[in-house]
């Protein structure tokens, strides 16, 4: 497919009749399906009115956010103002033990962290046949 000579690259592409025939009429015209990243890009607005294909992309779910946050043209957000500085006098470190705990702390693991020791499993009951038969209480 590629011919290089005298500093000029020429790519060669040939199509035989091997792919002729077949194809099932479906009436779908959408160009919003699987594609290659370098495929031709339609002019803005050219996709309007086209049918969806199967397989097509998932239908966009309604965005729970307010519409103003769904714009493509989003300008830089204002810097959040720093909270007003509290004047604190003689404030020592808070005692963690005094903090109310609404619920148990999440089970967060650190990698690499200590691996919890596996709990000793109960000894398996192995029966053999013929085995000793428990003596009947007299």
């Amino acid at each position, binding site marked *: 497919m590629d011919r290089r000579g005298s500093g000029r690259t020429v*790519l060669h*592409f040939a*199509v035989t009749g091997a792919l002729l025939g077949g194809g099932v009429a479906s009436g779908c015209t959408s160009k919003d*399906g699987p594609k290659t990243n370098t495929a031709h*890009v339609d002019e803005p607005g050219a996709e309007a009115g086209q049918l969806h*294909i199967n397989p097509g992309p*998932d239908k966009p779910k309604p965005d729970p956010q307010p519409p103003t946050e769904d714009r*493509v043209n989003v300008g830089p957000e204002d810097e959040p103002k720093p909270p007003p500085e509290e004047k604190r006098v003689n404030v020592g470190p808070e005692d963690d033990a005094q903090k109310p705990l609404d619920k148990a702390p999440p089970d967060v693991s650190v990698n690499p962290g200590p691996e919890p020791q596996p709990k000793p499993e109960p000894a398996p009951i192995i029966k053999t046949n013929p085995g000793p038969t428990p003596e009947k209480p007299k």
Partner: protein
Amino acid sequence: MTASTGAERMLGKATDRLERMHRTTVHRDPWPDFEAFDGARYDVALRRAAAVQWAGRARAEHGSVHQFTILSHTLCRARIELPVLGALARLITDEVRHAELCAEMALACWPEGPDTEPEVFRWEPPRLPWPQPPGGGHDEASLLAWAAEAILSSCCVGETLSRPMLEAVAVVATDPLAAAVARQILRDEHLHATFGWETLGLLIPRMSDDARQKLEQQMAQVFGGVERTTACGIGIETVAGTDIEIAASDEPNLGTLSDPQYAMIFFATMESEVLPKLEALGLDAFGAWRRRPM
């Protein structure tokens, strides 16, 4: 205050440390000098037409980040071997770089465009070209069957087609910046296609007969879909028995191809590379091609 377009938003700044991490991970090759682009050498219609294509490519590359991260997530859930995840991680960072390169190129081509026609540089939330992966509670076989379809569609077909298309873009581009951007992306595409062929080859033997048959049915849908998005409405009947040569011409070109060039590259690559490789994996690719929806 002027609102930024989607392409500008893509290129927005993070923190200094994140920028450094990003450059170290993502900017593996020397970054093209976009500032050096001399737009005055080209008329505005040519620059706008190129911006439409490059901005669309930026959206598509960003879509690949979306697709490959979901694929990575699903393969992770299926407990695939780590080398697969490692190779896929490379693809994800490549796609981030490609999106960045294409967005920069679009803005370089038409710097006045964001003010006059911001729609060209729009950036919609990405959408998957295939169904969502199975939810929680599904077994590994279901997850791998889903991954096989996604890999077949995005890598074996999509990335395999991207390579000759980018090669053509690099050849026809008369501007050195456009050619440099295309070549930098092109260097990765072969790797991406190889990831697809290798991973699909790994998954198919693990699939049941039913799952393989379903994949062949899905393959027909993929072929129909990619033909619609890539062949520019030109049918196989029009190009069968023909050939073309693609080379730089005397006309200025900022990295765009014509519709007939797209169609010829699509059908020639499907015929000579995609379908034979799928057949070699034991899939009835030519049968699926004949059953594709049109």
